[in-house]
């Protein structure tokens, strides 16, 4: 039989506001009424449903935030994305998540193990969950409401013991059922079905069938969005860029999950940092190689973002990923290490911190002139080496003038000349004679004489 898990997030509204509510008296209010409050506020006597003025009277230092439906919706979608890694059937239902878990049991173990996995994952993401299982979402939600988590074989027995007051139907319907003599859900189901159907409202009848697992409510299943767009807001503006590290890690972790769920990789990240003075810093991070791991996304991002010098405290950070590519499985040899992955991550880190020009690759162009043939460039292909006389280890670019006599500069000619006459096509003609020289009896140099000006130049060093 199909089993559903219902996940309720007791601090959903507080989390949606990005409020750090663990050590503060915070409350979310809507239309003058408290909707949710932190544990500290509860300890001070503030309770949901209370008027805002009453709450402020009881707790003068209460920090209040207005309820924002958009933020709540955004967070529940983020949580759905998180839950998507545990099942391909996740639905946003009744301000919580409904997950079809019967098919996940083979991967994550029995319901107890799955519970532990979900709780550990939730605590690592710093949010609280309450969960229970049932044959229908309504049954699971009723168990969550009552704080019960029965095993699969005890679903019906536990259900039958639940008080009729606990079911989620209008108060007048509950009163009517109680007048009929039903005290528990078990009492209700012990009565003949036809008699119940004739006496109670159809919606109530269907709801009871649903909590008993006899009626399935159609669910609209969640699917990962085509574009990743998430943000984290800060109740109190962040003064230091260092404080962004944790939000960056959280966002890149979510982005990595999203990419993996879509079997995609990305090479482009767009970060937006909003400041209190409403300035928005936009930073585009380009990766050398498309990736989908959290570390490969967060490291280059952090190295670029740490260079920011915001003029005023930062209130929001947002990550957008629009360009994705289909991930292809790595063709790894069993005995070969994955150097390419290490290499691309290294390049991402270095270029993020030092700029794109920090790493250069030597390449040889097809030009007889040494200064044109020997390049440091990442964009050219190396041409094969023809048979050439020995070349020096080091090149001087530009060459150093030796005046009209190499001997006067300490260079004694040893071997040569090697004639190079080229460059007539690009208006920088070279007509030179290269010599290998002994410099002050200690080093071997490479010098040339320009045949037009007859001046001598130091081109490089052998040792």
């Amino acid at each position, binding site marked *: 039989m199909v089993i559903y898990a219902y996940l309720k997030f007791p601090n959903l509204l507080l989390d949606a506001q990005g409020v750090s509510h663990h050590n503060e008296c915070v409350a979310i209010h809507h239309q003058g009424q408290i909707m949710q409050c932190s544990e500290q506020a509860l300890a001070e006597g503030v309770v949901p449903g209370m008027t805002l003025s009453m709450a402020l009277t009881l707790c003068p230092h209460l920090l209040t935030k207005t309820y924002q439906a958009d933020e709540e919706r955004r967070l529940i979608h983020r949580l759905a994305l998180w839950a998507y890694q545990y099942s391909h059937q996740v639905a946003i239902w009744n301000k919580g998540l409904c997950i079809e878990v019967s098919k996940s049991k083979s991967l994550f173990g029995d319901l107890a193990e799955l519970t532990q996995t979900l709780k550990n994952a939730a605590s690592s993401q710093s949010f609280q969950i309450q969960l229970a299982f049932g044959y229908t979402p309504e049954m699971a939600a009723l168990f969550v409401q009552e704080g019960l988590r029965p095993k699969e074989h005890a679903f019906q027995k536990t259900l039958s013991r639940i008080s009729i007051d606990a079911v989620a139907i209008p108060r007048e319907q509950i009163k009517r059922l109680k007048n009929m003599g039903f005290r528990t859900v078990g009492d209700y189901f012990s009565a003949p079905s036809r008699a119940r159907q004739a006496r109670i409202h159809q919606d109530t009848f269907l709801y009871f069938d649903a909590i008993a697992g006899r009626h399935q409510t159609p669910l609209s299943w969640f699917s990962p969005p085509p574009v990743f767009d998430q943000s984290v807001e800060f109740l109190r503006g962040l003064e230091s860029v260092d404080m962004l590290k944790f939000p960056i890690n959280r966002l890149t972790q979510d982005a990595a999950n999203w990419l993996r769920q879509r079997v995609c990789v990305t090479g482009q990240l767009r970060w937006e940092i909003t400041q209190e003075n409403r300035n928005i810093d936009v930073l585009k991070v380009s990766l050398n190689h498309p990736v989908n791991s959290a570390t490969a996304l967060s490291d280059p991002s952090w190295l670029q973002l740490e260079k920011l010098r915001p003029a005023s405290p930062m209130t929001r950070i947002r990550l957008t990923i629009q360009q994705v590519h289909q991930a292809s499985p790595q063709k790894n040899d069993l005995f070969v*290490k994955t*150097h*390419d992955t*290490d*290499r691309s*991550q*290294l390049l991402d*880190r*270095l270029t993020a*911190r*030092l700029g794109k020009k*920090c*790493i*250069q*690759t*030597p*390449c*040889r162009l097809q030009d007889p002139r*040494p200064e044109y*043939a*020997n*390049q*440091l460039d990442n964009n050219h292909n*190396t041409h094969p*080496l023809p048979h*050439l006389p*020995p*070349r*020096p*280890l*080091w*090149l*001087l*670019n530009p060459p150093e003038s030796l005046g*009209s*006599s190499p*001997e006067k500069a300490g260079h*004694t*000619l*040893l*071997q*040569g*000349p090697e004639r190079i006459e080229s460059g007539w096509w690009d208006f920088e003609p070279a007509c030179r004679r290269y*010599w*290998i020289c*002994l410099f002050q*009896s*200690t*080093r*071997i140099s490479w010098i040339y004489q320009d045949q037009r000006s*007859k001046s001598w130049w130091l081109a*490089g*060093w052998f*040792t």
Partner: protein
Amino acid sequence: MKTNLLRPLFDAGKLWQGNTETTIEVTDTGFPELNTQLCSQGWPAHMLIEFLTDDVFSAPIQCALATWRSQHDARWIAFVNPPLTPCTERLMQEGIDTEKVDVMNIPTDQFAWCLEQLALSGSTRSIIAWEMETLTSTQLRRLQLACQRGHTQLFLVRQLTHRNQASPAPVRVSMQSSITGFEITIFKQPGTNARPPIVVPTELSWIQKPSPARRTTCINKDSSRLH
């Protein structure tokens, strides 16, 4: 009991006793006379090796090139803050695949971080780096650990004045160049004591070959005419 506890460290080459054979992974130096001076017959393959010299142009790069020629590792090599531009054609003449060479010029304040990233990445087999500003003992220790973790060999070229200062580098070598070669003194290495200096000759036969264009005489004639 103590020996058993330390055995994994000995086996991994992270700890050694004086005058004992260590089993660390090494790479051929390319010079037989230098190999005999080194414990396990070569440079440690995954360690920080200090070259202390006043000649930053010649001896260190010749040692590195000779080592790279003998390595059979498909990973990259890196020049960090070379004193001049390395000549691509010469590297090709040395048999080095220039498509797997990185040349990096790093600001002084990022030098240690950059070396650590290179050593840690696992994609670089060997690095030769010219120290621009004196690295602290902590930075050197971090580089040594990064080399071990990333299986990278790092030749760090430092000024000879650092010889009298302690360093966490497992191999420390001082070098002095001459026209015929360079004198190497290995004064710290794993598993053995300091060794007497040896002279590694520079391969200059290609210069000494008689050639039609050899100009001891012609030079004088040419120069007398020119100047």
